């Protein structure tokens, strides 16, 4: 059973890909059949992943040290050979489990959420294509194949954000997402090309062996390789919504909510984190590059949190919280901890999918009314959503014993360990990490505050909107919520500090030697206090109404506006696009028409003018022709006698041969 799953791991992405093909080509008209094909395919992939997962856990760290790799050549030529296939190790199997699990749940949930949508077959086709691409990315054995699937998940994101293509805003958001990610991909592709020409391979395993000793294999200096690493990191920054590429992610909420849960919260956006995790050796070899990752992560985490506290739409708040949490994951990578980032990636996938699906239930109940100020008191009408959403909020706020507590705490711990506060930091930049640690702590407080701000406004008090009668969502939607709720509680326990070899998450998913994590009680108490303080403050403002948020806004109207308008970054980008790039295009077009074409037409005009002049020679008088003829012969004779050569060219002209 296990051997079958291992040797045929390529089936895991292929099945959803086949589902996509079948739906697009044949069953587009049959909605129910299309949905069954799509869900059936992803469930089989899920089962295969579970089989792999169980066996891998049983085998300890065998696969971590000796990954299973099966490849065939995709294309090759002398000096460039790219293989496609599967690379199965603990990290990829963990991702396979997360992706197939969440995708299955989201697809089932969509049966309820998207009921009656005429494009449902198309929806399932796109989601299947997404699942295929994401799973392909996860098990890709080399960077170029990763890039292939990376772009394909970007395509699916584009298609699904713009799913309701009749809406201008949806089509604009889709375009924005694709182009922003493309801007990052410029860096990623450049980085990949530079690695290829310097190391001669893009294979992940070979690179991780060669990179630590790069001076043996290449003529690169440490600075050169650092530049390559940072250029390459631009791609993950864009995909994972890191500052300054984060602008596309909030707009991506134009897509259907299940899509937001699946692609823009749980899976695709973490592809950047995953890619950096896959080549973390590159960054660990170069402390400056590592610090760069950490700075971007910590700054993004804090920056997005300061925007989230003033937003007024559930999905927008969740989007900024996703950006913020992705920043945490990057920070963990920047602290050289693969374990912490992958752990948070996993728990975040569960509780963020839960939160988004919960928000979907609320939107469903409120007939797509977006503003949270129209909600209120929803606890009465939708108890299942209420309780599961509460679990999600507690998890993301980092309250014991929910999943986010464990994973966020681990990130705090690894950052703390790299900072000068710990007293035993190894890296060259302990002071910098101290600042980053404080930023992460502040973010933890803000996270708890804005999540519970939203929670209290939506679910407590009285319903503000008069038009709608909210109701609980159908079972097909609430059951996935409950399952995700359970996982949002228990998935953190695998990271319980003190779990040893063969038990801890950090034993199965790690880079380097395994160390038992000692619980740092000071940190645990600090982060819990910060979270509780955030929740308490939110309760005072929005539940008990002891203080008026309006009064605070009036104190600092400038800061409020800055946060509410997302620091005007979108406006800035739009200004650049419209006033610089588009103007530039227009000017160059005019240059092309009037200067370049002007010269071409000028030659044409000259020929016409020349013709007009030369026409005068054609007088029709025989004497003139004879004179010119005679002068020509004299000239030729003079030429020949002075040069004295019988050039073959002249011979050819005169036919003298």
């Amino acid at each position, binding site marked *: 059973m296990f051997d079958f799953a291992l040797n045929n791991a390529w089936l895991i992405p292929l099945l959803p890909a086949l589902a996509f093909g079948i739906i697009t080509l044949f069953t587009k008209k049959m909605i129910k059949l299309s949905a069954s094909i799509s869900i059936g395919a992803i469930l089989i992939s899920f089962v295969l992943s579970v089989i792999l997962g169980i066996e891998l856990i049983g085998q300890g760290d065998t696969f971590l040290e000796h990954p299973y790799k099966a490849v065939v050549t995709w294309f090759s030529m002398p000096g*460039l050979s790219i293989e496609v296939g599967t690379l199965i190790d603990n990290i990829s199997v963990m991702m396979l489990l997360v992706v197939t699990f969440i995708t299955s749940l989201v697809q089932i949930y969509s049966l309820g959420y998207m009921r009656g949508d005429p494009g449902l077959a198309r929806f399932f086709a796109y989601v299947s294509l997404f699942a295929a691409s994401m799973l392909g990315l996860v098990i890709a054995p080399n960077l170029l194949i990763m890039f292939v699937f990376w772009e394909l998940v970007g395509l699916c994101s584009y298609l699904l954000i713009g799913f309701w*293509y009749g809406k201008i805003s949806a*089509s604009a958001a889709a375009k924005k997402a694709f182009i922003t990610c493309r801007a990052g991909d410029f860096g990623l592709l450049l980085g990949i090309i530079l690695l290829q*020409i310097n190391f001669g391979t893009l294979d992940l395993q070979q690179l991780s062996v060669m990179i630590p000793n790069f001076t043996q294999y290449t003529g690169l200096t440490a600075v050169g390789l650092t530049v390559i690493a940072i250029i390459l990191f631009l791609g993950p920054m864009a995909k994972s919504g890191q500052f300054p590429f984060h602008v596309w992610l909030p707009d991506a909420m134009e897509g259907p909510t299940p899509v937001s849960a699946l692609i823009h919260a749980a899976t695709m956006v973490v592809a950047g984190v995953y890619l950096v995790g896959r080549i973390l050796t590159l960054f660990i070899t170069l402390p400056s590059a590592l610090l760069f990752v950490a700075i971007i992560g910590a700054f993004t985490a804090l920056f997005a949190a300061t925007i989230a506290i003033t937003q007024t739409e559930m999905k927008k708040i969740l989007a900024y919280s996703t950006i913020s949490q992705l920043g945490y994951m990057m920070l963990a990578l920047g602290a050289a901890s693969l374990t912490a980032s992958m752990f948070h990636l996993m728990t975040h996938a569960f509780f963020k999918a839960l939160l988004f699906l919960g928000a979907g239930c609320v939107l469903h109940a409120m007939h797509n009314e977006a503003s949270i100020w129209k909600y209120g008191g929803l606890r009465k009408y939708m108890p299942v959503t209420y309780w599961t959403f509460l679990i999600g909020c507690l998890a993301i706020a980092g309250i014991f014993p929910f999943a986010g507590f464990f994973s966020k705490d681990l990130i705090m711990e690894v950052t703390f360990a790299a900072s000068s506060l710990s007293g035993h930091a190894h890296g060259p930049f302990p002071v910098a990490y101290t600042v980053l640690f404080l930023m992460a702590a502040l973010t933890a407080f803000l996270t708890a505050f804005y999540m519970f701000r939203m929670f209290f406004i939506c679910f407590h008090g009285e319903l503000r909107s008069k038009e709608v009668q909210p109701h609980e969502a159908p079972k097909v939607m609430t059951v996935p919520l409950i399952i995700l709720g359970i996982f949002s509680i228990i998935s953190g326990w695998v990271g319980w500090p003190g779990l040893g070899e063969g038990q801890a998450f950090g034993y199965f998913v790690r880079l380097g030697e395994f160390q038992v994590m000692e619980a740092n009680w000071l940190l645990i108490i600090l982060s819990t206090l910060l979270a509780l303080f955030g929740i308490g403050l939110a309760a005072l403002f929005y539940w008990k109404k002891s203080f008026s948020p309006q009064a605070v806004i009036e104190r600092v109207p400038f800061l409020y506006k800055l946060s509410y308008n997302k620091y005007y970054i979108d406006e800035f980008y739009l200004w650049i696009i419209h006033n610089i*790039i588009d103007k530039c295009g227009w000017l160059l077009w005019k240059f092309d028409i009037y200067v370049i074409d002007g010269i071409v037409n000028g030659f044409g005009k000259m020929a016409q003018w020349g013709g007009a002049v030369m026409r005068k020679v054609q007088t029709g008088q025989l004497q003139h022709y004879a004179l010119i003829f005679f002068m020509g012969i004299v000239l030729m004779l003079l030429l020949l006698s002075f040069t004295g050569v019988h050039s073959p060219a002249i011979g050819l002209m005169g036919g003298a041969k």
Partner: protein
Amino acid sequence: MNFPVLTTILLLPLLGAIISIFVPKEKSSIIKGIAGITTFIPLVLTIWIYYLYYTQHMATGGYAFTESIPWVKDLGITYGLGVDGFSLPLVLLTSVIGFCAVYSRSWSVETRAKEFYILLLILITGVMGTFLATDLFIFFLFYEVVIIPIYLMVIIWGSGSKTRKDIGKEYAGMKLTIYLLIGSAFLLAGLIWMYMLAGEMLGVLTFDLATLATLNFAPNLQIAIFGLMALGFLSLISMFPFHSWSPDGYAGAPTAVSMIHAGVLKKIGGYGLIRIGIFLFPVGAKFWAPVIAVLAIGNVVYTALISLAQKDMKYVVGYSSVSHMGFVLIGIASLSLVGLNGAVANMFGHGIMAALFFSIIGYIYGITKTRYIPDLGGLAHQMPRLAGAFLVAAMASAGLPGLLTFVPEVTIFIGAFDSPITRIPAFIVLTGIVIGAVYVLRMAANVLFGPRKEQWDYVEDIKGFSLLPIAVLVAFAVIFGLFPSLLMDMVNSGIQPIAAKLLSAGSQIGGSL
């Protein structure tokens, strides 16, 4: 192989044209049928020889299915045909686009269908001949044959544009033709010069490419002759600043001509540059490569920015095709095996993509009578199938993996970054992948998406024979995208001798440059 398969592929469209002459002009559907059959059979035959070459000849390389009939013995002219790994993808491209062009909708063709299809078939023969010829005289002959039908087709069946009211189809057709003619004049001068020189060196006159390739011309002469020929070839492949015929020409031309011209004909420039220029004059190529690399920036970045400002769909694709040729040029200028492989493969990839785009736009234009983007919008509501194909074309233009343009582009960049001449230009050119995504996605958003417009409710989705070219081209884009080795192995086997020539030239005369 006794059966003259290449001659069959070459002359069947011409035969179709001759038969069509005898069909009364009212029976336009019969004429279209003849054109369909006489392009479909060559397509099948091409796929067949592609398969045969891929399985049997690729390992050894070199010309296969050769035919050679002496024609003008005194001048050393032979009717010589043959295909290798380099020309075969382009022959396949010609066959598939030729077939698809017949079934693509051009809005004004109905009026004089008979003449249109006759000229189209002659055009296809001409393009095919250049790729099949192993004799440079035959190559040049077909190169010239191409020009006449194009001129007539543009000025008779062409159309003006709403964004360029100052110029009409007559201007577009004339500009296209004069550019090609001037370019071919330079090419002819270079060819004759080389022919005379080779005649002196060999003691016998010949146009045979394989024989000429054995010669080592003096470095200075190589630089001069390569320069002359390159002027011809590079204006055909629309190198900046000799590109301005291309957007106007494509916008003015009827759909079939745009497809063939952007899809295959301009690739003759790249083909000639590599097959004749680099193969025969490697030293000359080394001398000119930096110039080409720098001008390629103009192609990619400059025209991509201009594409952003376009409001006519055909101008967007027209400028984008100039932009894409910059990728090809930078691959050529890298003068490395990897870069050249990428350049050739990208010519194939861009050909399929551009033909698909023009075929779709031709359909939209034919049915809505407008190509002006602000007039359109929300067409995905009325034409979901066409919208899907449009997205495939747009994504292929943006170089999406899984479609056939991705691997060639990556290969080009790996080759270009690896070569010191092209490293810095390649860095700038790489920004083209971002701008390239912007203009196609903008066009897709403004044409396909947005609220349903009732004025287009009468529009029917594409179906029947009109669907044929789009389905075939999409299939090509996906199959070669998923299995790039089908193309890359083939190209590699054809380019290897040329790259070897470059290497040996480098070691022979490396010091003197």
